[in-house]
């Protein structure tokens, strides 16, 4: 294999960009799952965020408005999920899968006529001379604001879950909803709030794909990123900083295989393209082997609906 053509500076810089969508979506899903809800519709909410963000940005000419539009669209779609599961008590797994299928179809419909358009560009944050430092200038100071925002959000979620009362209540609801209810917490409302936050984060991640990472609109643009985000939450054992590591790891493998392809590696393209997914499966198997849920640190009430009848 030939590594000669791969520049490590560019590799690291571009893996940070590649990781943003899955990091945002995984971080949102982490909060959702911490509250005891399993929303498998991440892929659907991401792609709805991608098209909504794209359309908003194209029409307003502002990428910031585009990101906001993506987040709102993701949140709205998650609201459908929250209403179905929290108030009509539908099965969370089936509803989440349906949400993904619905999101994929709806985005395809809404995206008619937007193919081939270029969205307004999101520029790197001007750090002035700092950006000219060799290696660090490119890796640390050469990104658009969403890259920094995503890291800040990891820190924020970590702090809220660890140190605030809101975080404690969210964890309590995900751990034992019966007990939380008997202490007087509104289980379904707290879960609704978390689900909507997760939807907004997934939408934001989707918008980043169509506005920065690609940037244009094609059908199925998220290409399974939502599923990877779900896997990263498990990989991270429901811990925010590990989400960051997981996302960078996956982003790194994605970028590396692209670089290997470009460098003319003799491994067939198909194997390289599937490698990130294979490695994700492998990591999940290793993480889950031989230990129960407690070892994995999963919220005890994950995926169980709550109804205050008893």
């Amino acid at each position, binding site marked *: 294999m030939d590594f000669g053509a791969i520049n490590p500076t560019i590799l690291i810089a571009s893996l940070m960009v590649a990781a943003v969508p899955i990091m945002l979506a995984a971080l949102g899903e982490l909060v959702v799952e911490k509250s005891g809800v399993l929303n498998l519709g991440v892929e659907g909410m991401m792609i709805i965020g991608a098209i909504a963000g794209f359309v908003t940005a194209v029409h307003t000419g502002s990428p910031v408005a585009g990101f906001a539009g993506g987040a709102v669209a993701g949140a709205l779609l998650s609201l459908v999920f929250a209403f179905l599961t929290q108030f009509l008590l539908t099965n969370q797994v089936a509803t989440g899968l349906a949400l993904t299928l619905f999101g994929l179809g709806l985005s395809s419909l809404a995206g008619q006529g937007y193919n081939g358009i270029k969205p307004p560009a999101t520029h790197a944050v001007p750090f002035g001379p700092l950006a000219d430092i060799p290696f660090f200038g490119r890796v640390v100071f050469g990104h658009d604001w969403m890259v920094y925002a995503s890291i800040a959000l990891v820190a924020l979620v970590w702090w809220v879950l660890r140190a605030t*009362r809101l975080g*404690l*209540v969210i*964890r*309590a609801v995900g*751990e*034992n909803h*019966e*007990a*939380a209810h*008997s*202490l*007087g*917490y509104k289980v379904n409302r707290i879960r609704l709030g978390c689900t909507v936050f997760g939807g907004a984060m997934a939408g934001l991640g989707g918008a980043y794909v169509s506005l920065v990472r690609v940037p244009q609109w094609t059908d199925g643009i998220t290409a399974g990123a939502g599923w990877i985000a779900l896997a990263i939450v498990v990989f991270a054992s429901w811990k925010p900083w590990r989400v960051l590591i997981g996302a960078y790891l996956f982003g790194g493998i994605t970028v590396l295989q692209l670089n290997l392809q470009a460098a003319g590696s003799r491994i067939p393209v198909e194997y390289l393209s599937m490698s990130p997914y294979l490695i994700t499966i492998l990591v999940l198997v290793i993480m889950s082997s031989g230990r*129960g*849920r*407690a070892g994995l*640190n999963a*919220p*005890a009430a994950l995926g169980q609906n709550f109804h205050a009848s008893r």
Partner: protein
Amino acid sequence: MQDILLSVEGIGKSYPGVRANDDVSFRIGTGEVHALLGENGAGKSTLVKMIYGLVKPDEGRMMLRGQPYAPVEPRAARAAGVAMVFQHFSLFEALNVAENVALGMENPPPMRELAARIRSVSEEYGLPLDPSRMVGDLSAGERQRVEIIRCLLQDPKLLIMDEPTSVLTPQEVGILFRTLRQLSSEGTAILYISHKLEEIRTLCDAATILRRGKVVGSADPRQSTARELAEMMVGAVLTPPERKAAEKGEVVLGVTALNAASPIPFGTSLKEVSFTVARGEVLGIAGVAGNGQDELLLALSGELKSAPDRVRIAGRAAGDLGPAERRRAGLVAAPEDRYGHAAAPDMSLVENAFLTGQIRRNLDRGGFIDWPATRAFADEIIATYDVRTPGNHVAARALSGGNLQKFLIGRELDQSPDVIVINQPTWGVDAAAAAAIRQAILNRAAEGAGVVVISQDLDELLEVSDMFAVLNEGRLTRPRPVKGLTIDEIGLMMGGAHGMEVAHHVEA
């Protein structure tokens, strides 16, 4: 007469098909320890849930310190000075003690300050507790301390305790009572819910007795005998189960140095468990919940396998056999959890009868279910064990706890087994059904089966067992004959009070 703290007047509450409470009235004075006595399903829990703001009454009113009191949610009740310790703990296993306490408070102080307050309050009341420990790692008695301290930190005027002693060792009960008396002398009223009469007679100043949602009387528990209270509670005269003297036969179940890792999160592993059970013998295994009872049942039923020679059924090595093969060898098992483990809740009684009866009652023909035979088996159980049900087609879920338990116990007992293993045979079952179940177990033993009864109800074990042993942190004490055992000896076998006495000695 003391000042009236809380008065309840004409409270009523209906659920679809059930009148949970009907015109309930009683009063609690400041600093009074007031017992609420009644069988399972008498409406005690609904009543206290209304006082705690979890359930809204349909009619009637409550007065707290002379003011109208109608809490819309537990938060309002707590603000008014009412706190509650739940029967099934409202704790979070994956959170630590301080976090659990903080969740039950309106305005918790910062964590460091809260931890210091937990330490000081827990020492003041003789209930030592480390705020940084994970609740999942605590014993049942320690978990209850968390609940109590959570309440005490809010300086309650009325403390509601729902069946607090069902999971405690006798020594722990003694310490709890000391704490409650101390609280009472400081002016905190306690509403104490239980169906254990001796406890109420030693602790309480007054008692209100409920039956089928109605107040059927009040009594001064110190002046009444346990029998009088029981008959008011049950509304009938109870006869204790009779036992025929059975010949002890050869050993049918032998367990030698059985070790098993727990498959349950936060569970307890079994360590070097050894015992034997002979034909006609009932071995009672006591212990506070979470000391390996569930694991022992799994290891005996075959859901948890071990080396072949660790478990022997009628002399044959069976440690590596699964549940179906052990049934074939003559061992039947009834686990504690009725909905989900012992029964498939959404399947009919006939289908549930088939699920474990298939092997020993030959209910299948070449892979097909023999429905007539299965129906006959279900009907036989329903008739023999007096299961109250509209028919054998109803879903298991639709039966009340006591009726379903009678059905499930009957299903195992009617398979002419050599060995019977039962975990918590009468948990959540009313007194009449419990007596019937105990009698049925004794009858099978008299017919020559070896029986293992795992239970947290000491009175029950002393009533049915010939031999008595205690599970403590996964270890089983040497079985001893029930005859001649004192309650103090049993308490010591149960591991005393997990270091609680120390604190009280220091205080004294």
